[in-house]
Every structure is written in structure tokens, then in C-alpha cells.
């Protein structure tokens, strides 16, 4: 198989990996090529609207495992291919020089033994860093079941490490991915978290200590392939953020790949609204100070498809509103629908100069259409924006006559 055919096959197999972030790491080349930006840089957007910043490929799709939900599973017929180390290195360097990509996202099916696969992946990134002097972004997906030594070695060269938790519960993992054990996923995750913390502490004392996965670690789970409710998924995400210090948990709506009695029927479309609502709730838990139990409870364990989770929470808690823009603290502002992290920061900054007026809110980045009924400015209610007011009260126009008043 030629390089172009391999690239087509192995990038198509990698497209279900959600993460394409190139953020969180600052590298620059004293000698050699490449740099990374803390903010990350998107290089293009594919026709499905997703950002592309990394060359996202599998090293191989010849998988020894047979996970029911996976396009690369051993029992699925179809073409198989494996890159050579040279090919991946050449593609990365030539694409990087032309500014097509910000770096490499390398993952792989389990070829034979996890350690053997991990060795190939580590050889690629070691060669990029040591021989090619490449200082661009590298995200390496570690292989479940690989020994800690390989994970430790990978962290020396990669900016970000990730290991997919795959499914929200151990029971589902046993049922759909019988070759993978929960301990093979959480063990390396714990090890990466501890090593990152140790190395950060060492680097505080001595800057020359080499960093370990400076952009942290992330994970991904499939939603909709197994019966767990959103509350359980959000509790798991919170535990992963707090216990392992994960930068991100990615959610991926299950895309039917085959007919299997253990999975939803193949003609059932992926639940993208649920995926979207989970991301919104994840944001609220990670950055806005919400707990999963505030958003959901055992009697209502799934997110509302019709309303975003913050609006649904606000409507259940009328006693918390209206919030006064000129007196509320950051936490109170962040709980108002239509106010985000940036607009809350702007409100706090600008009210040191002058009280915020209702007409200033839009300029501060507040989505007035959603926020107006939850806010007041120094005791004054915020009027609805014109479009909302018009929609609420349809105008009944009547033709006036000059002599009507007589």
C-alpha cells in the first residue's frame, strides 16, 4: 500500500478521536524547528466544521482487541495498514514546514502486545524530538495495558498524553470491550497525574528539569453506546478532573458502526444534542463552580434536550434572582444565564470605573436576550431587548384617521 492510501485509511480511522487541541504548552526552538502557543492554533476546519490543528492519525489499524463499538476491531473485515516510523516522521515534518499543522496526534490500534505498540509510538516521537529537533506539539494516545515504563518515556517527549476511558462504567467496559480492564486505564492515568505533579514541583526548584507532558492529560468517553445516565457521566467527569487533574474530558455520541446485540441498533442516529448538553454541563462543573447534583438528581438523571443546563438550573431557582450586576460577586454573576467567564470579568473590571447601566450590558459581552430577566442594575430592572419585547407583545397596527379624536 502506498503512502497516500495508508494516510487515507489511518486518518479516517482516527477521525472519531475528538481532541485536536494544541494548547497548554509553551515550547520554542533554540535549535531546530517548531514552537507551540499556549492558546493553541487551529490550522483549518474540515467540512464537518471541526477544527484541525494536528496531523491526527493511527500508527496502525491492525487491532488484536475486539471492542464492539470500534471501527478497528479485530472481527471487522476491511483493509489494514501500518505506517513505518520514517513515514510518520516525514509526513509530520513536511506538513509542519508548510504550516498545514501545529503538530502530531498519534494513536494506534493494539498491534499484538500493548508494550510492542507503545514502543513504536515512542520511537516516532523520540525521533521527532531528538533527531529532527522538532519543537511542535505532540499528543500521544497511550495504549491501555502498556507498562508504566513506556508511559513514563512517552511523557518525556509528548506535550499531552491521553488514555481513553471509553465507557462510563466498568460493567459496560466488560460487556463491550472485554479485552480492556478498567485498571489498565485508570492505573496509567494515576501514574501520569502523579508524575506531572512531581515534575512540576521539581521544575519549581530547578528550571532545567525536563517537563513531563506539560499540556497535561485528557480522556474521551463514548455516550449512548451504554445505558448510563448523564448524572453518572458528570460525576465520573468531576472525579477525573479532581483526582487526576485532567485538562479535558471529551464526549463522543456513539456513531453506529455495526449491528451487534450489545449496542443500539445501527439505524439509530447518534444523539448529538445529548453530546452538546454534556459539554455544556461539563463546562459548568469544570469552570463555573457547579456540582453535578445541582444540575441533575436521581429523579431526573438526564439533561434536558430543550434547555441548556444553566438556564434549566436558573428556572428551578427563582429565589436566586434577580442578581444585581453592580453588587454581585463573581460566583453569583457566573450563575446567570447569558453571562460567561469573559463577560463576568468585564463587569467586575468596568464597575470600578462607573456603575454598569442596562445599555452597557451588550457591550460587555452579556447575551442580553437570555440574561435580561435574571438581572438588575443598581435596583433598575433590565428591559428586554427589542427583538424579545416584540416577540412577546405582537404589535397590532391600526390605521389612524385625522378626525378620529373629534
Amino acid at each position, binding site marked *: 500500500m502506498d*503512502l*497516500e492510501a495508508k*494516510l*487515507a*485509511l489511518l*486518518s*479516517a480511522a*482516527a*477521525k*472519531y478521536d475528538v481532541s485536536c487541541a494544541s494548547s497548554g504548552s509553551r515550547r*520554542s*526552538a533554540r*535549535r*531546530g*524547528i*517548531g*514552537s507551540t*502557543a499556549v*492558546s493553541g*492554533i*487551529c*490550522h*483549518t*476546519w*474540515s*467540512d*464537518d*466544521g*471541526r*477544527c*484541525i*490543528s494536528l*496531523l*491526527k*492519525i493511527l500508527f496502525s489499524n491492525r487491532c488484536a482487541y475486539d471492542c464492539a463499538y470500534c471501527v478497528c476491531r479485530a472481527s471487522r473485515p476491511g483493509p489494514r495498514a501500518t505506517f513505518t516510523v520514517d513515514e510518520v516522521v516525514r*509526513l509530520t515534518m*513536511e*506538513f509542519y*514546514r*508548510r*504550516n*498545514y499543522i*501545529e503538530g502530531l496526534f498519534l494513536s494506534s490500534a493494539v498491534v499484538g502486545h500493548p508494550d510492542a505498540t507503545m514502543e513504536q509510538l515512542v520511537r516516532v516521537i523520540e525521533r521527532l524530538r531528538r533527531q529532527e*529537533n522538532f519543537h511542535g506539539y505532540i499528543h500521544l494516545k497511550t495504549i491501555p495495558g502498556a507498562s508504566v515504563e513506556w508511559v513514563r518515556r512517552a511523557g518525556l517527549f509528548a506535550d499531552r498524553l491521553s488514555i481513553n476511558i471509553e465507557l462510563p462504567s466498568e460493567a459496560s467496559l466488560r460487556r463491550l470491550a472485554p479485552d480492556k480492564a478498567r485498571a489498565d486505564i485508570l492505573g496509567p492515568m494515576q501514574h501520569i497525574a502523579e508524575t506531572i505533579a512531581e515534575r512540576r514541583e521539581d521544575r519549581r526548584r530547578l528550571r532545567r528539569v525536563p517537563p513531563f507532558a506539560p499540556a497535561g492529560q485528557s480522556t474521551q468517553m463514548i455516550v449512548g453506546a451504554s445505558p448510563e445516565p448523564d448524572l453518572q457521566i458528570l460525576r465520573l467527569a468531576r472525579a477525573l478532573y479532581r483526582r487526576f487533574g485532567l485538562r479535558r474530558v471529551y464526549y463522543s455520541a456513539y*456513531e453506529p458502526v455495526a449491528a451487534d446485540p450489545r449496542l443500539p441498533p445501527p439505524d439509530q442516529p*447518534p444523539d*448529538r444534542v445529548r453530546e452538546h448538553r454534556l459539554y455544556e454541563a461539563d463546562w459548568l462543573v469544570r469552570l463555573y463552580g457547579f456540582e453535578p447534583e445541582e444540575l441533575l438528581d436521581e429523579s431526573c438523571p438526564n439533561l434536558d434536550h430543550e434547555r441548556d443546563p444553566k438556564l434549566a438550573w436558573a428556572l428551578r431557582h427563582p429565589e436566586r434572582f434577580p442578581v444585581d450586576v453592580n453588587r454581585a460577586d463573581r460566583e453569583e454573576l457566573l450563575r446567570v444565564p447569558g453571562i460567561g467567564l469573559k463577560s463576568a470579568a*468585564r463587569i467586575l*473590571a*468596568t464597575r*470600578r*470605573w*462607573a456603575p*454598569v*447601566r442596562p445599555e*452597557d450590558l451588550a*457591550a*460587555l459581552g452579556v447575551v442580553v436576550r437570555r440574561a435580561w430577566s435574571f438581572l438588575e442594575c443598581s435596583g433598575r430592572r433590565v428591559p428586554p431587548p427589542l427583538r424579545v419585547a416584540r416577540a412577546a407583545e405582537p404589535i397590532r397596527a391600526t390605521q389612524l384617521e385625522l378626525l378620529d379624536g373629534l
Partner: protein
Amino acid sequence: MTAAIRYDGSTDGLLCAVARALGSEPAAHLIGPDRTGEARLLPDEVTVEADPIAAGAFLDQVRWRLGPRWVRRVLRLCCAADPARDRLLLGALALAWERGAEVEHWYANPVIRATLRLERKVSLEAHRFQGLLRFRRLADGRLWGPIEPDHDVTPLLAPCFRRRLATDAWLIHDVRRGYGIGGEPGADGCRPWTAAEIEAELARGLDPTEAAYQNLWRTFYQSICIAARRSPALQRRNMPARYWRYLVEEPGGGARVDRRPNSAAPAPDKPLDG
């Protein structure tokens, strides 16, 4: 009575004019080379010469009085292509001169708000082109990246690519404004290129391996898309179609869109055909 300060349109000229205007009493009005009509309405007019040393001294003064964030802001605003640019730059600096650097947080103030919005437009476009610039390898090994930005962001992009491509020769070519900035392997700085120099460089043609890598990239781009999630609206929201002209990957299935009327720019690889 408001006075008019005329300058030659260069960055150095603008900085010298702003320095002069900030020191003047009463308030002054800046006039660039493309705005001649206004001059007749204003009684007193002075012309300020572009002096790189005076411009540098003014930036030092900004750094000393307002800090490095304001220096970056002034340099970004100098790259903006907007009719309100001079007025906003002068207005925001006058406010900061009077009330201190922290005035940048007064988002409810219309001058500060409009200035920050313009600055954001420029820095967003520079950030976008850090990703959307596509280099093509020329026969002599130099990487040539044509762009057509709305604002003059090439000076903001050059330092990023100098760090990034320290071992290569490269050239960012602003096709719309007819100039470029390039760097050499191992060199610390970069230098401006004139249109004639760029034309001579492009006459060498493309490297023979270039087409193969462009094909590989297009293959990757098509394979990575999940067909069931196709969303042209989301794609265009993230990457406006006016930036597609020089992309190698042909987004939207190759439907290149150039909404700008009377665009005189050459097609992406046209200079290389001969």
C-alpha cells in the same frame, strides 16, 4: 479650535503624529495620505515627518507610562485597516495618558470599547493567519506563503514564523498590499521584500516534490471529515470563506469563494506557471 496633523501613512509617521497630537493643546486631528478632503475644514495644519527614532522614543514613552500591554496595543492598531483607526488610537491614548493604563478595563466607555474591538479584530486576524497561512516550497527551497489579510498583519506574523522556521528560508507575501517579509535560516531578524524581489523569486517555480505533499494534505483533509456530521455553516463560521483562496486543502469540496469584487490578486499558483 481643532488643529490638523498630516502624516505620510507609514507606521513611523503615524506614531510621530500621535506623539505630536498628544502633546498639543487643544486636541488635534490626524490626517493620513488617503484622507485629503478633511483638511480644508480645519484651520491649522501641520505636517509631521516620519522619523523612526522619534517613533521608537514614543513607544518607549508608552512602555514607561502605560506598560508593555499598551505598546502591543499601539502596534496592533498601527496594523489596522479601518477609517476610525487614527481617531481611536489617539482617543484611547489620550484617555490612558490622563487616567492611567488601567483605563483599558473601562469597557463601558465607547472609545475604549471601540478601540479594544478594533485591536481584537487585528489580533484575531493575525492569530487566524498563524494557522491559515500555507507555505509552498519553491525550487530554491524557500517556503513561500501568500496571504490577503483585511488588516496589514504581516509584521505581526513574521516574528512567529521566525521562531518557528528557524532552519528554513521563508517568505510571507501579502498579495493585496504587494510586499512581503522573509527570513533566512539561522538569521536573527527578518527583512521586508519588495514586489519586484518577490516576482523574481517566484519566477523560479515550485519544488518538484511540492505537488505530492499538497496531494497528501488534501487526502488527509478529506479523510478526517465525518461525512454524517457535515456542516458547511459551522465550517464557514469558524473559517470565513474570504480566507480560503490560498488554502491547499480546498474546503467545501473545492468551492473556492472570493466575495471581494474586482480582486486583482493572482490565482494561488499563477506566478509559478511560467
